[in-house]
Structure formats: C-alpha cells, structure tokens
C-alpha cells in the first residue's frame, strides 16, 4: 500500500506544465523530503493530492483511493501562514478553530474535541506554547503550534509545505525532529517540502526531487547527484558532499540554485 501515488500525472497551471507525466509512490509510514527549485511544483503537488488542483491527465491516489476534496486521511500544513502571525488569539483557540472548523451547525467544543486538541499539541510539544497569543510566539514556536493542526483527526499522510521557512537553524532542527518522531510514533507517512536538503538529510527515509516537470524519488545518495539534478534543473549541476552535508552548485553562473531559498515568501506556486 502506498500513502501517496502519482501515475503519469500531468498538471498544468495556465499554459505551463508543472508536472508532465510524473510518477512516483510514497510508502505507508515513510518520511520523504521534497525538494526542487521554486516553481518546480512542490506546493502544486500537495494541492493536487488534496483535490484542490485538477490533474490534466494521469491518476493521483491517496492511500490507494482516488483523491477527494477535504480528505480527512490527510493532515496538511500550508505554506502561506502570513495572516495568522498577527492574530492575538491564543494558539489553543486557533487549533480549536481548525479542529471543529469543518462542521456547520451549532457545534459545541465538547470534551472529546478538547482532548483531541490537547493530544495534538502534546505530540508536537506545544501544549504550553498554545496558552500564549499566537502572534506573540517566535516563528519556530508558532510553527510547532500550527504543525499540531496537521495531526487533528489522526491522518495517515501528512503534507507539510515548507515548515522550515524563515526559521533559524535551532528551530529547523527541532521541527525536523518532531516530524521524524511523529512519523515513527504515529506511523504516518510524511511529505516534507523544503528548499534546502541539509536540515532534513539525517531524518528522511527518501528524497523526492522535482524539476522540469519530472519527479525522481529515491535514497538521497542516488537522487542528489550531479547527473540527476542536472536533468531536473535543466542545467549542469555539481553536487559536493562534505561532512555529511550536500552542496548543490550550478556550473552556469546565471543559475543560482541556493538563491531560490530566499524567495519563497512571495511565491505561490
């Protein structure tokens, strides 16, 4: 059984092919790091799995079932979290709004729902943080509180879109560790997108690399290599490995692979 499977999937946004006949499968309980340049389709891929972006051809399946909108088997953490950062509400209230936010009608926040919220916050170690106003937390603290929402409803697959964005290295490390622990303890598959491999490299089972409409999945050593990345970036790429860290360098000086890292805030791809 695979947690997420793309078979020959083509996705177009406007006239552009974001993915063209891409295929890969992510196993149950597997922790996959998703990398690729800006515009390579990381967010689009997640939105396709959530049924928010139509596929032009091919089949996307989640836990061996066709994609449905509002699939409760998927926990999602979107990339665009700007507005919430200014809110004065407590983290707990924000998580609570997500926990019962799907239901119309006179919905009470009952004991079961409260326990579920506390459980999710405990899983990410954010129970105490959630008592504070979400706007007053640091970026890393806020990220943990928001991450807990992805666990509500006990999903089998987590799609985490750039959880490390604009975090300092210490918080990056702790978010990656939390994700690894969630993967092990709760036996959920995780797709974790990032613009840099190094913070993830010791935690992930495999890497999914996107570029030029294609998707390549495999162990880090087999995917993050000069020939594979050169194909995905469409330019000559060299990978330097030093002390367990990977450095991706473009030989053409017009292409700045690392620069992509810093332009994510305004990108909605």
């Amino acid at each position, binding site marked *: 059984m695979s947690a997420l499977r793309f078979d020959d999937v083509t996705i177009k946004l406007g006239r552009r092919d974001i993915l063209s006949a891409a295929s890969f499968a992510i196993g149950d309980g597997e922790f996959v790091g998703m990398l690729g340049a800006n515009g390579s389709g990381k967010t689009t891929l997640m939105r396709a799995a959530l049924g*928010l972006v139509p596929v032009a051809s091919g089949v996307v399946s989640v836990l061996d079932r066709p994609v449905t909108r*509002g699939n409760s088997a998927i926990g999602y953490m979107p990339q665009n979290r700007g507005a919430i950062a200014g809110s004065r509400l407590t983290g707990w209230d924000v998580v609570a*709004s997500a926990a019962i*936010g799907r*239901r119309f009608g006179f919905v009470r926040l009952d004991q079961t729902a409260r326990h579920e919220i506390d459980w999710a916050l405990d899983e990410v170690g954010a129970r105490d943080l959630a008592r504070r106003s979400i706007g007053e937390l640091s970026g890393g603290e806020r990220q943990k509180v928001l991450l807990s929402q992805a666990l509500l409803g006990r999903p089998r697959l987590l799609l985490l879109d750039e959880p490390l964005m604009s975090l300092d290295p210490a918080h990056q490390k702790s978010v990656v560790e939390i994700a690894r622990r969630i993967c092990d303890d709760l036996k959920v598959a995780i797709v974790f997108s990032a613009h840099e491999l190094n913070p993830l490299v010791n935690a992930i089972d495999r890497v999914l690399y996107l570029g030029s409409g294609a998707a390549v999945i495999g162990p880090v050593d087999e995917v993050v290599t000069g020939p594979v990345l050169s194909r995905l970036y469409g330019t000559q790429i060299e990978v330097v490995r030093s002390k367990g860290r990977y450095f991706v360098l473009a030989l053409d000086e017009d292409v700045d692979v690392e620069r992509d890292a810093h332009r994510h805030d305004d990108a909605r791809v």
Partner: protein
Amino acid sequence: MFEYDFMRTAFAASGIAAILAGTVGYFLVLRGQTFAGHALSHAGFAGATGAVLFGLSPFAGLVGFTALIGVAMGLFGEKLADRDVAIGMMLSLALGLGLLFLHFYTSAATQAAALLFGNVLGVDSSALLDLLLLAIVSLAALALIGRPLVFASLQPELAEARGVPLRFVSAALLAIVAVAVAECAQIVGVLLVFTLMVGPAAAAINLTRRLPFAVALSAGLALLEAWGGLTLAFYTDWPTSFWITALSGLVFFGSVAARRFAR
C-alpha cells in the same frame, strides 16, 4: 427617562441593533473586512432612498439592497472584498446614487439626515418586532456558520484543504453583515455604522485573547455604548449618534492604551 414611550422604544431598538452589530462585527474585524462593512452601509443609503422613491419602506430597501451587494461581494471572493479601491469606488457610487434618488424625491432633507446620521428617537414601536426578528434570524445564521467561518477567517488555505466552502461562508457572512448594517443604520445612520459594528469588536480583540470572550465582550461593549449614548443624549440634548461615536471611540482608544500598558 423611561417614562417616555419613545425612550423605551429607543432603548429596545438600539439594544437589539447593538448586540447584533457587536457580534457580527467581531467576525468582520477578524477577517479584516471592516472596510467592506463600511461600504455595505453606503450601499444601504442608495437602497433606502431608492425604496422611498418607489414608494416602498426605506428599511426594506436598506436590508434588501445591502444584502444583495453583500452576497455579491462575498461571491466575488476574498480577492474583491480585500480590494480597497474597488470597495471605495462602490461606496462613492452608492452614495452618489442615493443622492440622485433624493433629488427626485422632493421632501427629502430630514429623511436624508435620518438615514445618514440616524434617528433612534424616531424609531416607531411597530418596527421593533421587525428589528428583533431580523436580529434573531441573523444571530442564528451566524451560529450555524460560526465554526467554518472562524476557521476560514483565521486560516483560509487550511480551511479550503479541509473542505470548507470559502465562498459560501464569505457570502453568508456578508449577507448577515448587511442585515446588521441595516439595523445599525436605524440607530446611528449609514455613515456611522462603523462605530457600533467595528469599534466594540476591535476593542474586544485588544482586551482578550480568547475567542468566545471576545465575541461576548464585543456584543456587551456595543450594548453599553448604545445605551450609554442614549442616556447621555437624554440628559444633554445632544445627538444620540454623537454620544455613541464618542463612547465607541473612547472605548477603542482606551483598549489600545490598555494593550500597550499590559505589555
């Protein structure tokens, strides 16, 4: 002051409108759509004057037209409701249209002043039941969409992924806002709707971090401001709407100071 019939009616009318406005206003502020609410009240001016011109009740015109514009704004999606320029243009267009309707309707001066700045002492006791019923229906509707509304307001992308129909929620809220605007306009007039709808809600947000308390506080503050304004107007003989705006401003700026001080 309660020995006067018109004062009892005014207290009842402003109490109903204030509780509705304070509650609905919280969600408007939460979503950052206060300007859209302001514009809706101006659409109400065109609706009310148009209705008078065609021999209908101005209140019906007010509710009907604001609701129509509200739903339209909601269906165009967050994008339009966020666009200050488009909303500002609609606002002035509506006021201009209202002016045209008044031009054709000859004995318009008092009517216009009442519409623009409110005339709570002139509320007819027979209109109370309408105000009450509309408020109950609106609050019930708000409670029905409340959970998805809060979710969609705080985290629209996550809410969408979880299957919350964003457009429906947005249109439904603006329809409810339209009713609240129409009720509020009876008390403080279309130009000053902000004072009861946004002032108390913004103050409540400054004063508490808990969502349920904030909603209750917003409604409570709106009620206090409306009744306080009426009382002050009774004893000073100054316009009620002035006193309500003064209290609303005082509470809001006080809450800003309190928030600063609390840090």
